[in-house]
């Protein structure tokens, strides 16, 4: 259709002002929160690591020996000239900009407390650039290998420490019996059944295992002598982990490689375990940490060598370690004034104290780790169970359907109940009525599980509901029972979503203080809990207590160190869970 000249000036204009205003307001709102939190974390980190007292020479030394090689590694991995140019531009331009701006503000407006321009540069420019380059670098093969290896080293150490911590509370002797009589025969039968495809052996595995566990509980008191802890850990943890690692490799690379992957870390861990007392370290923990670092690392290295790509990435941990050592040597030789961080080895391993410099978080860390482990297991099991029941087993109509809907609404309401109320419930129900004891770890774990249960249930329900009905009908039509459909189709498909919800909920549980106060958890304990029924303290409780101490060193240094520790453990826990979830996603 031909039009006249009416459109010669275009088609007129449609106003977008409101949309643009909305867009920038939203951006501003989200940036404001992030910046505020970022500034807080910067100050907390400065306090915890005493960076305010770090001399510029000290900072420069470590920047050159640690950060610059890392950035170079990332750039090498990315091998993209544009990225290199941009990164160098940002680092150089940022240096000038931050120095100028900082000096100008200090001179003209207001002095900025406990910061100098070098630190500001580190936090405002160097840290984001490093994060960005790490992200870009991980896209390259070399970088992926390097970060993969680094992740296994750090993650392995964390898992080893966590398992070691759990054995402080759970009786290793009972575990020794349960493993020997129950777990090992059951796994053996199952593996035998799969290999020979004899279903009878496979179905026998569960009852045999259960029988073994029951026998273990009874025999625990009867048997008078046990092997030493080190032997128990070697037999029940180190050997199976090494065998699992070897089996993973055996398929692809043959027996020699498998023996090396399993055997070398096992030998190193055993040696470490026996030599540890000489260095004043607890030998079981050393054994566990070495095994949980060594075996995954060995499997990973073998896999990378097998693939033959990005081998240079395997040097990343070495590069960082060499940088740290070199930095320490230079600082020592030239006598640069070094900071005296609050967050150091002794803070993590010492008991609380009235003197700030002696204060440690160890008992509270152990308490928190144990509680979180229990909460994770309890809330996951209860949450998944409840949500599966509500979504898959209850009818949508009729009187039962109405009942289900009432349940649903109430669960949603429970999510909004304040945590002190749950604390009161824990005090009344678990501590007093069930007699689990005031301020014990098991009371705390049960209370916190109840607290996060609604969140877990609701998110698990969402995840289960998002599984397409087509899949359920497909499974039903194959003649699957409801349980088979749920177990084989619905849960695997919903697992990533369920794990996401559980991770978020656990993050809330680890930081809760109010319910712990209500159930009478100790503000400070001086010994790590050694059973589920001993008095304990948790990290947030301890930090809160320190914040009320009169000495300034407590309020600034020790509290900051505690906060950083809490955040690091939280990030580590979430990281592990996210890895698990991603694996579940890839598996499906």
């Amino acid at each position: 259709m031909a039009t006249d000249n009416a459109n010669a000036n275009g088609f007129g204009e449609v106003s977008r002002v409101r949309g643009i205003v909305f867009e920038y307001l939203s951006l501003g709102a989200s940036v404001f929160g992030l910046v505020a939190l970022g500034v807080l974390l910067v100050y907390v980190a400065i306090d915890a690591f005493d960076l305010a007292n770090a001399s510029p020479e000290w900072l420069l030394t470590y920047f050159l020996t640690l950060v610059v090689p890392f950035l170079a590694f990332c750039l090498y991995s990315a091998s993209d000239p544009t990225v290199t140019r941009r990164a160098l531009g940002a680092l150089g331009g940022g240096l000038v900009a931050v120095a100028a701006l900082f000096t100008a503000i200090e001179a003209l407006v207001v002095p900025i407390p406990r910061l100098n321009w070098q630190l500001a540069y580190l936090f405002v420019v160097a840290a984001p650039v490093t994060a960005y380059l790490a992200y870009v670098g991980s896209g390259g093969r070399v970088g992926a290998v390097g970060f993969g290896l680094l992740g296994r080293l750090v993650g392995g150490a964390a898992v080893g420490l966590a398992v070691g911590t759990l054995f402080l509370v759970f009786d290793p002797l009972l575990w020794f019996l349960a493993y020997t009589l129950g777990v090992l025969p059951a796994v053996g039968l199952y593996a035998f059944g799969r290999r020979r495809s004899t279903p009878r052996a496979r179905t026998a595995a569960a009852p045999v295992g259960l029988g073994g566990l029951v026998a273990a509980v009874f025999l625990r008191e009867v048997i008078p002598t046990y092997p030493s802890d080190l032997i128990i850990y070697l037999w029940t943890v180190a050997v199976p982990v090494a065998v699992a690692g070897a089996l993973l490799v055996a398929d692809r690379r043959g027996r020699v490689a498998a023996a090396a992957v399993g055997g070398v870390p096992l030998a190193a861990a055993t040696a470490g375990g026996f030599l540890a007392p000489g260095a004043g370290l607890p030998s079981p923990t050393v054994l566990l940490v070495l095994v949980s670092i060594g075996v995954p690392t060995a499997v990973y290295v073998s896999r990378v060598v097998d693939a033959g790509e990005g081998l240079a990435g395997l040097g990343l941990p070495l590069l960082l370690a060499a940088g740290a050592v070199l930095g320490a040597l230079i600082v020592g030789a030239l006598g640069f004034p070094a900071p005296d961080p609050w967050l150091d080895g002794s803070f993590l391993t010492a008991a609380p104290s009235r003197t700030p410099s002696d204060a440690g978080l160890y008992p509270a860390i152990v308490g928190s780790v144990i509680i979180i482990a229990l909460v994770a297991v309890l809330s996951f099991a209860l949450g998944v169970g409840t949500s599966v029941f509500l979504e898959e087993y209850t009818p949508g109509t009729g009187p039962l359907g109405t009942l289900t809907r009432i349940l649903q609404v109430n669960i949603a309401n429970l999510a909004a109940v304040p945590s002190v109320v749950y604390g009161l419930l824990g005090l009344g129900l678990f501590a007093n009525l069930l007699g689990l004891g005031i301020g014990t770890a098991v009371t705390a774990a049960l209370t916190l599980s109840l607290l996060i249960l609604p969140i877990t249930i609701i998110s698990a329900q969402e995840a289960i509901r998002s599984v397409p009905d087509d899949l359920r009908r497909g499974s039903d039509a194959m003649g699957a029972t409801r349980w088979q459909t749920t177990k084989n189709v619905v849960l695997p498909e919903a697992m990533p979503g369920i794990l996401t919800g559980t991770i978020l909920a656990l993050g809330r549980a680890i930081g809760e203080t109010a319910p712990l106060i209500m159930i009478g958890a100790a503000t400070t304990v001086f010994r790590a809990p050694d059973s589920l029924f001993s008095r304990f303290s948790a990290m947030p409780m301890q930090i809160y207590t320190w914040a009320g101490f009169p000495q300034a060193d407590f309020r600034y240094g020790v509290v900051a160190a505690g906060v950083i520790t809490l955040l690091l453990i939280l990030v580590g826990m979430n990281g592990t869970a996210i890895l698990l979830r991603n694996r579940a996603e890839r598996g499906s």
Partner: protein
Amino acid sequence: MSNTTSDDSLITTEVQADSNDDSAAPAAGTAVAARNLNVYYGDEQAIDDVTMEIPEERVTALIGPSGCGKSTFLRCINRMNDMIEICRVEGDVEFGGKNVYDADVDPVALRRKIGMVFQKPNPFPKSIRDNVAYGLKIQGFDGDIDERVEESLKGAALWDEVKDQLDSSGLELSGGQQQRLCIARAIAPDPEVILMDEPTSALDPVAASKIEDLIDDLAEEYTVIIVTHNMQQAARISDRTAVFLTGGELVEYDDTAKIFEDPEAQRVEDYITGKFG
């Protein structure tokens, strides 16, 4: 849908292609029989007093306009309607001489003897191997699973395309391949009857014709009951055709050749020549 293009030439050619099968085939036994079957969704009647016998090792097509109850009828056979809470079934559906709605029939056990393929391909988010082995695993099959997987994939004309990627996800296949995977999954536990609910309506014509060829082969071993919207498809692949019309009424049920060539009822003729529906 496609019946708007129907003309006499189409129908006659198809019928000729099919009629020689029929004449050569000996009289077959009955696989599934419905007797005075009535189905209601709440107050609404979906199937109105249907009585029919479906022969063994033949392809039987159920055609009719949307909402005529043909899918409902299909789901009565393996009791998938049990999943719909407001659904109520009266009358008998006999499978292997036994009324599947008798109190002593376990619907789960029944479904293990009757395979089903849905309109939209719905492979499980598992590997191709695990998809095909699914029925075997849940039924506790203790033979050589890998061998059965290979047989079933060959039976579904998919083996050559996927034999090198049995461990990759079933969702990575194309739509037509996914549907053949679903067929392989359905035949793996060796059912007696395969129900297909518009198995090609979500596929492109090339993929659809592969499935049609496959259905022809399947009828050598299995009883196939297929719901389709596509009249040419019914004419091409089926031996017997049942025409359902609005209200869940079975208007005519006869040899496919007869239905398409010379239907008794005027309504059926109007429907298959595209005057309505």
